């Protein structure tokens, strides 16, 4: 079998890249997925969409993506409901230093056209009446942030790409990439051999392993982040509530259930997606303190998924100096779902040597060479 481009991974990134290439007229695109659609990090994510970031790059990626999501159903001609809800993100601060940081972030966000605002405790209480304002000092709010259904959104990209002729193969794990004279020759799976000179690595938690097959070192690692979901109730909380210092994000989704997560600072770097009682304990304590009303709800289910961490917590969207025809969309550090429309657009521009919509030279793999100190994105849970 022959292909012009082989994309590895049918999560939201791989599907968005496939769609963006196909809509520009590229033929013979094959997507290989080791399990099923959204089986990796996309289908395990917290389903939040936000533009309130501390770095200019993340702000621009998020803003461009939200603009796409707002018209995604029509653009992709999707027959289902993508459950996009723009009721905002309420970020709460717990000390003066964080309050000050939020002020700086809002200023940056406003300068880029993101409608966030710094608000006080009283205003925060008006937006989320059951918020415990005794434990916070202030807040920032952006009304156009929100929620989006990861399964449906990926399905929308998947179906649109399929209509444009992209071929998807599920339960086809890539086992090797054959390089001859520093050029990609073929991609091998358990059942197939695909002759192709171009490979896109959108393998999420397994991006490093795919890089190793191609002989390109990608300095990312996977770590488990856990989530739980409650029984559904009538709408009582409109925005996502998030605190970086308390280590929590919690949102009521359109279905009525609450989804919440927090990170474990001692988590090991591996592919584990297991659920732990320790997460359940810590999550319950945190949410009962900040949103006491939510404590009355029953937990229905918990699960885990991989964040793929890059050294500066920003994505890698680039070609590679080491190997011609090898492209990367990985290292999203927990935010690949919400950036996916821009990921697909920007990588298609790199592949087709078009002018870039925004300057993303800072997202090139080569930034990690001989560099140890990075400016971190601090606004992460």
């Amino acid at each position, binding site marked *: 079998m022959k292909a012009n481009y082989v994309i590895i991974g049918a999560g939201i990134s791989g599907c968005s890249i496939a769609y963006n290439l196909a809509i520009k007229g590229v033929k013979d695109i094959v997507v290989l997925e080791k399990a099923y659609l959204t089986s990796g990090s996309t289908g395990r994510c917290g389903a939040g969409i936000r533009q309130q970031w501390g770095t200019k790059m993340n702000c621009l990626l998020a803003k461009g993506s939200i603009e796409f999501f707002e018209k995604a159903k029509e653009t992709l001609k999707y027959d289902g409901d993508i459950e996009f809800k723009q009721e905002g993100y309420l970020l709460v601060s717990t000390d003066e230093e964080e309050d000050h940081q939020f002020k700086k972030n809002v200023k940056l966000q406003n300068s880029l056209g993101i409608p966030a605002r710094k608000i006080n405790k009283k205003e925060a209480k008006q937006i989320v009446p059951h918020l415990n304002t005794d434990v916070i000092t202030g807040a920032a709010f952006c009304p156009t942030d929100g929620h989006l259904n990861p399964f449906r959104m990926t399905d929308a990209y998947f179906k649109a790409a399929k209509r444009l002729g992209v071929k998807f193969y599920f339960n086809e794990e890539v086992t090797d990439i054959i390089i001859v004279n520093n050029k990609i020759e073929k991609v091998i799976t358990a059942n197939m051999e695909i002759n192709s000179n171009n490979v896109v690595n959108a393998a999420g938690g397994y991006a490093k392993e795919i890089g190793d097959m191609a002989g390109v070192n990608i300095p990312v690692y996977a770590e488990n982040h856990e989530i739980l979901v409650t029984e559904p109730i009538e709408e009582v909380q409109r925005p996502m509530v998030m605190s970086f210092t308390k280590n929590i994000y919690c949102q009521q989704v359109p279905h009525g259930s609450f989804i919440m997560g927090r990170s474990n600072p001692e988590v090991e770097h591996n592919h584990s997606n297991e659920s732990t009682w320790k997460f*359940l*304990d810590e999550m319950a304590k945190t949410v009962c303190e900040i949103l006491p009303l*939510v404590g009355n709800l*029953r*937990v229905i289910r918990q699960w885990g998924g991989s964040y793929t961490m890059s050294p500066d917590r920003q994505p890698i969207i680039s070609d590679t100096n080491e190997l011609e025809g090898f492209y990367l969309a990985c290292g999203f550090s927990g935010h690949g779902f919400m950036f996916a429309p821009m990921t697909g657009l920007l990588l298609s521009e790199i592949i087709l040597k078009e002018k870039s919509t925004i300057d993303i030279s800072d997202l090139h793999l080569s930034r990690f060479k001989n560099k140890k100190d990075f400016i971190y994105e601090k606004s992460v849970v």
Partner: protein
Amino acid sequence: MSEKDVIICRCEDVTLQDLHDMMDQGYTSFEELKRLLRIGMGPCQSNTCGQLVQREISKYLKVKLEDVKTQKVRPLATGVKLNSICEGANNES
């Protein structure tokens, strides 16, 4: 009885018709159907619908029931209030 009137997942109110429509689109594993229809995501955690869906998949794909891959079972075994978990955790420490 019409397929529209047969409830296959009572937690999330999914009918047999919904299930068959989705299978006609090519989604024929429990994990895919779960993600698009929410079957098995409700309070019973597929204790009720699990076997019913397995049987429908088996019929649709014309494979033996025992060859249909079962869904991933996740904790908790039953719904527990966050307040109760919180109290329990505080009593331990």
